[in-house]
């Protein structure tokens, strides 16, 4: 167990190293000069060169990367070129909001997706099932920006049930979380449906029925825990997909998360911030997968950590 964990953590660290290198190279070859962004339009050539030198951007790629790594292992993510603040401060101030939103989104997509998936499986082949299937396509194909604005318009502006954007209370979280979760709920409902159908065919379900258990108990104690197993690995993958959605949702709802930070940084090639956000989100994706791998054996005793 300890050995397994150690190897997985080592693997995760290597993956993060790879991510950092690829990002660094990509940003290096990107046709945009961060120094121009810092120096402003009235800067003289001399000023530009000064800044380039101060930031070490005149060094060869590998030297720059080495420096970045050296900082990274000491927990130093560098300073933002444009905000002139520690990247770690910027991220730390925005991360909680993003995590909250992500947690809300995952909760939302699981609750909606799994419920619909189970219902569809129970009503397999009937009109309700087909209706739910179409619903799941709608969910999967709806652009998040439009969904977000629509929800905002209907539930916040017209009905006034929720605040119009912003951050703070639980009421603020509902609409962004739903927007973020809708797309995933479509996927989950489809996967849960097929997983559930598979499980409902299993012998042990028949055994449970033969024991005279109620439908509810069979569903919740026997079918669900088994059906949910293949879903767990998906949640790990999901975090990566969420990172993309978060940019859009945060901007619609004025949610102060790292998505907005990333978007602004990309627009203006604020390399330390881009690197920082990338590393943090990659860290979460890796962590998510790691957690999924660690949690699975607890739910499924057949799987050994190896």
């Amino acid at each position, binding site marked *: 167990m300890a050995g397994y964990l150690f190897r997985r953590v080592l693997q995760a660290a290597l993956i993060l190293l790879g991510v950092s290198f690829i990002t660094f190279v990509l940003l290096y070859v*990107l*046709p*945009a*000069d*961060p120094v*121009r*962004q*810092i*120096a*402003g*339009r*009235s*800067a*003289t*050539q*001399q*000023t*530009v060169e*000064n*800044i380039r030198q*101060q930031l070490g951007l005149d060094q060869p790629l590998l030297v720059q990367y080495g420096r970045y790594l050296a900082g990274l292992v000491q927990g130093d993510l560098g*300073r*933002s070129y*444009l*905000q*002139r*603040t520690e990247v770690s*401060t*910027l991220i730390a*101030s*925005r991360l909680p*909001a993003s995590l909250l939103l992500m947690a809300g989104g995952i909760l939302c997509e699981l609750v909606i997706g799994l419920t619909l998936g189970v219902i569809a499986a129970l009503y397999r082949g009937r009109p309700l099932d087909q209706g739910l299937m179409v619903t799941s396509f709608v969910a999967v194909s709806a652009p998040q920006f439009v969904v977000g*604005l629509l929800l*905002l*318009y209907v539930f*916040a*502006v017209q009905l006034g049930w929720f605040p*119009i*954007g*912003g*951050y703070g209370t639980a009421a603020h979280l509902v609409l962004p979380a739903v927007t973020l979760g809708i797309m995933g709920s479509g996927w989950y409902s489809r996967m849960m449906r097929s997983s559930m159908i598979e499980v409902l065919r299993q012998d042990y379900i028949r055994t449970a029925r033969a024991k005279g258990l109620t439908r509810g108990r069979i569903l919740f104690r026997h079918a669900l825990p088994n059906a949910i197993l293949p879903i767990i690995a998906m949640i790990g993958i999901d975090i990566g997909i969420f990172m993309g959605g978060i940019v859009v949702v*945060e*901007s*619609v*709802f*004025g*949610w*102060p*998360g790292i998505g*907005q*930070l990333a978007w*602004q940084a*990309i*627009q*203006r*090639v604020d390399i330390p911030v881009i690197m920082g956000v990338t590393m943090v989100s990659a860290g979460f994706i890796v962590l998510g997968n790691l957690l999924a791998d660690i949690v699975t054996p607890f739910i499924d005793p057949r799987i050994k950590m190896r």
Partner: protein
Amino acid sequence: QDYTPDPNATPGGTITITYKDDVATLDPAIGYDWQNWSMIKSIFDGLMDYVPGTTELRPGLAESYEVSEDGTVFTFTLRQGVTFHNGREMTAEDVKYSLDRVTNPETQSPGAGFFASIAGFAEVESGAADSLSGVEVVDPQTIRITLSRPDATFLHVMGLNFASVVPREAVEEAGADFGKSPVGTGAFKLADWVIGQRLVLEKNEDYWRDGVPYLDGITFEVGQEPVVALLRLQQGEVDVPGDGIPPAKFQEVMDDPDQAARVVEGGQLHTGYITLNVSTPPFDQLAVREAVNMAINKDRIIQVINGRAVPANQPLPPSMPGYTEGFDGFAYDPEGAKAKLAEAGLGDGFTTQLYVMNTDPNPRIAQAIQQDLRAIGVDVEIRSLAQANVIEAGGAGEAPMIWSGGMAWIADFPDPSNFYGPILGCAGTGDGGWNWSKFCDESIDAMATEADSFTDPAAPERLEMWSEVYQQVMAQAPWVPVFNEQRYTMKSPRMGGDDALYVDPVSIPVNYDYVYVTE
């Protein structure tokens, strides 16, 4: 002549303003964004200031100033009893420190170049000296600034945010984080800042100008999509949308008389233009550049942006001194344009690229331009990219055409010289420079230098000269001036104060010091 505040103004109340993008920094030496420009204006003061709602200079922290005959020595007498937010009194030492700081390469100020005319700038820039030799503290109330050459715009420069006076001890204490905990002499001071969410300014009770500000506080909420901000304004949750009325909502707002009444329209020191890279064929031929100028249907483009601009025919916007009234420029004439192309031997047209920043409405404008040029046989490929990538392509001289929207020149200060230097002068043509046309005419450059050597910026001969400069530029047509954008903003019903304060040409978007709330 000074400003008479609104007699109906009542003190008290707080207002809410929203922005899409985060506020990067409140360090006056660094801040150069749409969002933080006006905030810095309210937190800090410089020696010079502008009359609210106008482009007229007035003394700020300087009570008075004297200019030497040759226009190279400025002696400022400071106001007495002005204190920083930390309670200490401001002195001439602080002014010197602030100017040294902004020009020091370590500070990496994007505005350092504005101070190039101060004696000793070159030494500081190259790192040979760490203090401007041209700035001398005569006594605690007096500071003398010597220029290496006459500079008509110098007083405007001293009114820029970059010239704000900062207290040394606060800067040194905060170190690199001064931008997050600013200390100035301005009407407001920073009360609270939650990065990415909200920034709260509160009234500086000890402000040196009497009677202002009226507001007790201002809350800036950032990260708000402009459409959402407007929805909130309509619900009464927001007082001023910092990013203006989003195009998607413009029609709706204007169609509702109640809302339209609260829309404020104002001119802006802005010109939207297309740069034509004169160093690459076929734009190295004047006839081709003229053809492009004649091919653009500016009225149609303005229609596409809901009429929120006026057609332009020269680099300067109409409200800028030195604007040439009655200048003809190029009229819309596709047939003439074709003839010009034929004259250049390109009767069959050619293919080229138009770079454009990727935020609405710029790609749309680019498409309108594309259609106009297709009409004269020029095939334009659009490259819609992030701001940084467009700037890079422009600086490297890779972009044959660039639509300036989104990165456009909004003047830093109301002086005609502001539209020349880096964007049309020879200095900006180097690799990475902002002169994206790579247009360089030594004789025009010489005339510009001469115009700037006047001592009085408003001297009629000087303005005449600038007018001449821009006419000569247009004769070579390195740009297609397309329109001068009008600013439309909106306020909540409770907002009071002159409309001009809401479209203040300097303190964009609102001059916080003078507005008030009516309830």
